[in-house]
């Protein structure tokens, strides 16, 4: 299990044990955490699972694919540490990961 801290835009923290193999998005959605909509269910088609990856975890979460980068380029409130959480696979390595949610996904 990997402990992941999801922080809503209003500061509310949710610490969740997520099974390796799921994505960071699935960890939030299956636990009904507000702030990640994931309308397309993880197909990298909608950009509604946008998160900011804590700086300390940027390298461990890997790099975005061209498709993800292209979607993010046109999403709102994008920062250099923005990712689509459906594209980050959870591994034991990510135990302790912290992600923050943007103000809105739509």
């Amino acid at each position, binding site marked *: 299990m990997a402990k992941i801290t999801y922080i809503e835009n209003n500061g509310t923290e949710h610490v969740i044990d997520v099974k390796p193999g*799921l994505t960071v998005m*699935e960890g939030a*959605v*299956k636990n*009904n955490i*507000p702030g990640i*909509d994931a*309308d*397309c*269910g993880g*197909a*990298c*088609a*909608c*950009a509604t699972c946008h998160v900011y990856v804590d700086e300390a975890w940027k390298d461990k979460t890997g790099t975005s694919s061209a*498709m993800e980068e*292209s*979607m993010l*380029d*046109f*999403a709102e409130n994008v920062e250099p540490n923005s990712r689509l959480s459906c594209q980050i696979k959870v591994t034991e390595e990510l135990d302790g990961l912290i992600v923050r949610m943007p103000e809105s996904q*739509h």
Partner: protein
Amino acid sequence: MSSVDAHVVVLGAGHAGGTLVALLRQYGFDGPITLVGDEPIAPYQRPPLSKAWLKGEADADSLALKPLEFYAENQIDFRPGVAAVKLKRSDKVVELSDGSSLSYDILVIATGMRPNRLPVPGAELAGVLSLRTAADAEQLKAHLKPGAHLAIIGGGYIGLEVAASARALGAEATVIEREPRILARSACEALSTFFADYHRARGVKFELGAGVDSLTGADGKVTGVKLSDGRTIPAEVVLVGVGGKPNDELAAEAGLETARGVVVDLEARTSDPSIFAIGDVSHRPMPHYDRMFGPESVPSALEQAKQVACAITGRPAPTPEVPWNWSDQYDLKLQIAGLPFDADKILIRGDPASGKFAIFHLKGDLIQSVEAVNAPPEYMMGRQLIGNRKPVNLDKLADPSISMKEVAA
């Protein structure tokens, strides 16, 4: 609306109903919730059934919207395997197929659609399938072995996605379409041609402008599709993907206004203020297009689930979203924003032969819809421009060397 302790009954445990009950708890609603679904399993995502799930890249757990424990842990009385059979609005009671009945303060109809049957002889043969539920997908998957012959009746998105998955699994696929082109109901000719060519290059066969006379069989099992011109396409499995019909009879019999689905407003409320309808069963306003429509899409179902959760919990109504949808076939990602209503011109940006392009449907210099193939910037920016109704310079839009950010500036 004072609905803090109201009993919310949701009929239909699909994508719409499942999302709504979770949102109600997320938004702080702590009254009783009952979720009634006629399938044996908890709410799950349907889109992967024709794609990742069929190809064995997703399992039941990943399809589920929430783990099964979620419902009990959140005091949601989930009743699988049960359908609503009668709605008595005067008593605010729903009668269920197991003989029991439920009293509601707020009712949400989320009963979805059912696939149209093929009105030809042989439609009842074993191996003639439709694709709506996980159980349907399970049956289809069992047939898609290397070398198997799959005939797909109906060249819509579900049929094409299944054709792509079948090829990935090594099965042969023939798409039979009554119209002279695939996607005739939903896409323009350029996109139809592109997808047909892409599928042909990967071994899918097409019979276009072809009527189906009957399905042939032996020992109760399907063996082929007999076309109106007399030829027979051999097949051990036939997928019928010729559209669907909203499950709105319960609502209609109870006197709610229907019109190819239950008529709702922008809060997803029906003609009875205590009853909402969401998802494929609803016929809803499309505020960007000044008309009513049934988009038959997951994003629309999710938007309506939000509308109802906001209405019940007293939150402000969410901003109307630009309708959108997507389809994955092979390495192609099609993203569609908007609907091509009232469009008077089609503009193609990029070269379809490159596998990366976008088709804009325009009304004057306003974008009504965009179909983007492996082209996220065109999709993302197109969606924004549809939402804010900003006119675009068509010369710039037609020139792929000018970025979408500059087009929208």
